[in-house]
């Protein structure tokens, strides 16, 4: 193992990204001895690890979603607190993706690697903002690793939604959004825009919203769709997991306007595939300018790209005079529109 040659001590094996001198995996896709988990989304927080290191919020989310299978031993790591694991020092720094999401900082023999997990740079009322940690190796996500992806300002997208709601008082606006993070952030943004009316929840989103509220995040008045009268939901906003959009479930709503909140919505083809009537370009992942900005700010001389559209980002990183490498990790989904339903 040579500290300057990162691939000699940090590399993907069949379980996930492995740090050899620390003897742990980061976001392994299957059960392992020791896992550091960046955040609670299903393709990062897998069941049944022996030791799980994560932020207290992520551990709580894992308990909530995986219950018995949340892992044998939980080790809470507060942001910035250094833990020694094997020969390496490890600490977490906020990633700004969802509540509790963290980057993993690894220091070994004078070299520092940062594994970003998923992240975004714009402010989010429901979680701590991304912190830039200068490093030698930066392992970045690339969900939106193409220059066509520039997310619109959040307030503009929320304004479009609220205009549409006001224009069609007889219809409900059904928003499909990732059940952990995106759903709560949208509600918080809608509240910040001055919309005080009750917001209705699909059963699969209730638990996570309640958890966010317990954590002190204001979401206003939330009501369950289950048992509600059709007419009560006219002119209002309903939150559901993406899978419910085309489901028979949505028939209980008054002539639903199908909305979908995702960075993919910037590409018309993607919105049309889903039969979306009102696409909202709101994402919890960095868009292209944010990815480039972040890579620059970390000052890393080498950048690895974990999942997404790695070709374009690697090309750009090379143009920036840095060494780029695409890490093909198994078990990662095209995030931001996969079906993420809380149990």
């Amino acid at each position, binding site marked *: 193992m040579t500290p300057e040659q990162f691939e000699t001590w940090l590399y993907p094996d069949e379980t996930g990204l492995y740090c050899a001198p620390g003897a742990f995996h980061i976001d392994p896709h299957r059960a392992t001895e020791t896992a550091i988990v960046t955040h609670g989304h299903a393709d990062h927080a897998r069941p049944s690890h022996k030791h799980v290191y994560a932020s207290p919020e992520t551990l709580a989310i894992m308990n909530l979603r995986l219950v018995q299978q949340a892992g044998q031993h939980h080790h809470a790591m507060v942001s910035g607190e250094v833990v020694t694991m094997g020969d390496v020092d490890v600490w977490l720094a906020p990633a700004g993706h969802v509540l509790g999401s963290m980057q993993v900082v690894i220091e070994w023999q004078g070299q520092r690697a940062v594994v970003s997990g998923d992240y975004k740079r714009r402010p989010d009322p429901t979680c701590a903002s991304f912190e830039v940690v200068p490093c030698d190796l930066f392992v970045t996500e690339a969900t939106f690793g193409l220059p066509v992806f520039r997310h619109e300002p959040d307030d503009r997208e929320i304004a479009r939604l609220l205009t549409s709601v006001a224009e069609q008082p007889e219809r409900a606006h059904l928003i499909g959004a990732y059940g952990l993070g995106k759903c709560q952030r949208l509600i918080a943004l809608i509240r910040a825009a001055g919309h005080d009316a009750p917001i209705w929840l699909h059963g699969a989103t209730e638990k996570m919203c309640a958890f966010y509220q317990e954590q002190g995040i204001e979401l206003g008045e939330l009501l369950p769709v289950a048992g509600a009268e059709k007419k009560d939901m006219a002119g209002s906003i309903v939150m559901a997991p993406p899978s419910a959009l085309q489901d028979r479930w949505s028939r209980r709503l008054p002539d639903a306007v199908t909305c979908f909140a995702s960075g993919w919505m910037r*590409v*018309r*083809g993607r919105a*049309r595939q889903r039969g979306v009537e009102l696409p909202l370009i709101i994402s919890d992942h960095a868009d292209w300018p944010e990815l480039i900005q972040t890579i620059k700010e970390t000052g890393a001389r080498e950048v690895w790209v974990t999942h997404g559209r790695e070709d*374009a980002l690697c090309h750009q990183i090379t143009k920036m005079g840095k060494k780029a490498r695409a890490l093909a990790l198994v078990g990662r989904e095209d995030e931001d529109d996969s079906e993420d339903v809380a149990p």
Partner: protein
Amino acid sequence: MHAFATLLDRLVYTPSRNAKLALIADYFARTPDPDRGWALAALAGDLDIAIPVRRTFAQLLDGRVDPELYRLSRDYVGDTAETVALLWPESDRPEQGPPLADVIETIRTADRYAIPERLAAWLDMLDTNGRWALLKLLTGGLRVGVSARLAKQAAAQHGGKDVAEIEEVWHGLSAPYGSLFAWLDGVADVPDITGLPVFRPLMLANPLEDKDLETLDVDAFVAEWKWDGIRVQLSAANGDVRLYSRSGDDIGRAFPDIVRTITGNLVLDGELLVMRGNIIAPFNDLQQRLNRKVVSAKMLKDFPAHVRLYDILRDGDIDLREEAWHVRRKHLEAWSKTHPNPRLDLSPTVIVNDRNALKEIWNDTRTNGIEGLMLKRRESPYLAGRPKGHWFKWKRAPLTLDTVLMYAERGSGKRSSFYSDYTFGVWVTHEDADDELVPVGKAYSGFTDKELRQVDKWVRGNTLQRFGPVRSVAPGIVFEVAFDAVHRSPRHKSGVAMRFPRIHRIRWDKPVEEADRLETVMALIGETELANGDETSGQQEGEQLSLL
């Protein structure tokens, strides 16, 4: 530009036909001439502003966007205009942009070398949506889920008219349709199309269902062969001759060998074919002649065009459309006798007296190299559209083969980012090596959206190699492919090509080793090509052929 961009954006995301009609009609009501006329032309696909797309875009992007990033983005988005619109640097203070008419006027009159800079200036001032609409407009093919007919329907709705009234005059008009809107607004009479070779909306057939056949009153019908070319309308008036495709596009420029032989005032309905002597060439040969701006003398000689006539709609001042089919047929036969023309002949009718004989003839269509049968009610008038109960098409049963998926390509538009275009192959036996797959065709239809998602996922998990938007995959899925015919093709490695292939069933259950072999495919060629050469030529001799 802003109002038009907003209209297009809303159309893209509006699934309901009625809501689309309302959006367009509302736009016509709110927008002054000539902008609304240009918008109608754009929606109906009749806007003829030819900018050299490739060169213009290359000039636009040069120095602004990294070519590699552009290529990868284009590959992902699946649409050139949208890719450029999304990549273009954002304006801090976007503006409404110029009126639609100004854009079109500028593009039409500008020196073509000045167009990229003009376009860049507009792109700099517009927002993402405005840029997209502008570029879609200039590259043709809006793809906003509006057909030419729906656009006309919206104009009809705006003016409280029937869409047939608009279709009847449509080809006598040109953008920006001032006279049309004046009529629709009630301030002028219907536009005068007298003496113009306009398109008469075609009469189309319904597919024959099994239950139709059992209840069909055979005596009331006459059968015709369904020829394997493209349906056309020849419309001539005052020395001006048009050859219209089924959708009303004038394709006459590509077929001077037909157009120059027509004189007089008349409207004929027929099938466009390539014919050598009495032999109909494969559809592939006709394809060489389609979609060409200019035709070389060699083309005209090697692929001679021919129209086989089905019907006559107008002769001189007489509109025959109200007449019964048998009256029009007599008229057509008489006209044909007095106007001999080696480029035209009559499609023979087939007299059939009972249901069983009809079935027998239909069963033979495959061996006879004919696409199928048409059944026409003797008393049917010539009605626009697809009226029920008058005409039936009875296509011959397709052939099927079990093939193996070899390559998958990302689709475009609605299917961008989905691997939706499939190249499939069959096995070839080698003496000294393992069996090998060779591609025999490509298809992108015949499966449901759900199956598309399943195959897409499978492709991503079983990729061998990537070539831009194409992935080669490990042999793993059997596609049962239905197709109309197979012919020899030196351009393909397998030496064969399929006509009208579509995915019939996805055989997740079938092991790939059990898919068909090339010998089986070759055997099917023999059948269809032989038949084309020998049998059909015999039938084309007589004008009326009685099979009983």
